[in-house]
């Protein structure tokens, strides 16, 4: 491959156009067109790949439906009830409100498949609650919301895992189950870190909710808490397809917020639809760009060449996994996560396959990794979002994020080294690795 080969030119164009500030989806389409052009191929192939790819990927329809479900659940009154429930559970500990932030993220994770949506949903409210009367430093509160939102797409439902299912041809059902333990593990290390530093930093304790009130608080939050049961029930009973399960979850969310909590007016319904449509469009453009560019990568035979190279280097599966982790973490500091998932991960997949690495394990490791990338500076979308919501400087935010980053990378290492953590639940439901 010479320097001026069409492929190098295309990659160079995509990088350059992205750096110049063009939306990444457009940059990928434009770069791929450049490839087809310089290679003397039919430029209509870009249209063909995009249209057929979008039209035949029925699985992708789960994405707008999950976005919609989370949007329906993201109403003030549901969030209030969830927070009261979390507060009754962990508020009595030192640093209680910080723990509530994490537990709330874990619960919301089971209704939403997007970290950015989680941060947007609870960010402002948690920030107000935590910084009231100077109880917690603003930068700590913002950093905590950012890192706890990372759990969102690891615990099912999960938009990145749907994308991974698509590129790897792996079962969504097993992938979703596989995310549960790693997601809880991430929550646990975050809560552990808060508990370990709460006394030293003199974090406040919330007034304890009497235990006899727990049943009532739970009852009020129950319809929202049942959403994952509906979703996973539909999915694992084998009654519905994954996409239909997503639709059922969205329908349930709409019913709950409209009738039980009476928090939906027509105007809200329209706003939910429009917000979800916008998110769908943004992610859809990234998928569209990746579909076109992946065609280029495939005809250049990059994934297979890499697999052959790795095989010849006699890399051990563990060595490859560690290398993939380092690569994804490094890329996560600079690239947008969906792009990494849709462009870089498919290149690594054949190698993982050739080395006998379980595709479900690999997928969860990759997704945990990419999610951590959302809080790694300099380019971390969750950091940017919390900077904006909380109005704290990036420098302060990063300083508070770093200890969490350390324990989360520890959890990632554990998930990488012990595949059973990931595969235990899927195997329980009949997955054969």
């Amino acid at each position, binding site marked *: 491959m010479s320097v001026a080969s069409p492929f190098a030119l295309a990659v160079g164009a995509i990088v350059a156009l*992205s750096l*110049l500030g063009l939306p990444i989806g457009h940059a990928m389409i434009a770069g791929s067109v450049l490839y087809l052009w310089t290679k003397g191929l039919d*430029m209509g192939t870009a249209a063909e790949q995009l249209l057929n790819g979008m039209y035949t990927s029925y699985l992708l329809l789960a994405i707008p439906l999950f976005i919609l479900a989370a949007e329906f659940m993201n109403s003030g009154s549901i969030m209030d009830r969830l927070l009261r429930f979390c507060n009754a559970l962990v508020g009595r500990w030192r640093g209680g409100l910080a723990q509530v932030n994490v537990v709330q993220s874990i619960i919301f994770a089971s209704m939403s498949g997007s970290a950015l949506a989680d941060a947007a949903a609870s960010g402002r409210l948690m920030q107000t609650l935590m910084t009231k009367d100077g109880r917690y430093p603003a930068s700590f509160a913002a950093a905590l919301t950012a890192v706890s939102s990372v759990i969102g*797409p690891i615990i099912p439902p999960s938009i990145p895992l749907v994308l991974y299912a698509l590129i790897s041809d792996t079962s969504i059902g097993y992938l979703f189950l596989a995310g549960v333990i790693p997601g809880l593990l991430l929550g646990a290390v975050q809560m552990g870190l808060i508990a370990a530093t709460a006394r030293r930093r003199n974090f406040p304790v919330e007034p304890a909710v009497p235990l006899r009130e727990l049943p009532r608080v739970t009852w009020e939050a129950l319809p929202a808490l049942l959403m994952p049961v509906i979703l996973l029930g539909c999915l694992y009973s084998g009654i519905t397809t994954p996409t239909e399960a997503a639709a059922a979850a969205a329908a349930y969310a709409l019913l709950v917020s409209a009738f039980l909590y009476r928090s939906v007016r027509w105007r809200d319904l329209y706003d939910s639809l429009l917000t979800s449509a916008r998110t769908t469009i943004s992610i859809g453009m990234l998928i569209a760009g990746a579909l076109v560019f992946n065609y280029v990568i495939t005809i250049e035979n990059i994934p297979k060449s890499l697999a052959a190279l790795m095989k010849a280097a006699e890399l051990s599966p563990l060595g490859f996994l560690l290398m993939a982790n380092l690569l994804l973490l490094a890329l996560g500091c600079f690239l947008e996560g969906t792009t990494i998932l849709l462009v870089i991960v498919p290149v690594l997949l054949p190698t993982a396959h050739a080395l006998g690495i379980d595709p479900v394990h690999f997928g969860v490791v990759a997704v945990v990794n990419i999610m951590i990338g959302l809080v790694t500076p300099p380019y971390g979308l969750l950091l940017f979002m919390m900077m904006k919501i909380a109005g704290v400087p990036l420098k302060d935010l990063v300083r508070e994020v770093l200890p969490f980053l350390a324990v989360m990378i520890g959890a990632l290492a554990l998930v990488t080294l012990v595949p059973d953590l990931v595969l235990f639940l899927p195997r329980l439901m009949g997955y054969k690795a």
Partner: protein
Amino acid sequence: MRRWLRRRAENVAAAMLAVMFAAFVVQIVFRYFLNFPVGWTSELTVVMWLWLVLWGAAFVVDEREEIRFDLLSGAAGRRTRIAMGLAASLALLVLYGASLPAAWSYVTFMKVEKSSYLKIRMDWLFSIYLVFVVAILGRYVWIVWRLLRGRDEGAADITKASSGL
């Protein structure tokens, strides 16, 4: 006028998502409660997905809401940012423009096929791609025009740009 058009484009996008959702509900009700599977609903949902993304990218979501990497352009001075914007926009105009005739022949060629259930000609279904390319070309001509007159597009708004991750 532009605001009014933008609002109508948003109405259409929200309606497409609503149709997609409703079609799924119909599909579930028919298959599992009435034991009468229907095929047209899944076709309708896929069409809505394709149209929603391309329609939305063309008319609803603007530059500041899309996922882009703006560390460099954000750090650059105003003049540099304008120069960067011009370079990127012109490159996009050339490449999308060059691909338009080939895209046109692909889409019109698809008139030989029809969708399986609704029997809609595929060139009609896929025509949204041409709408998308033409709208993007139009938008970037407008952006170049603004940049040339020294109008800075400003940084991306991260709380609005949602990649779904």
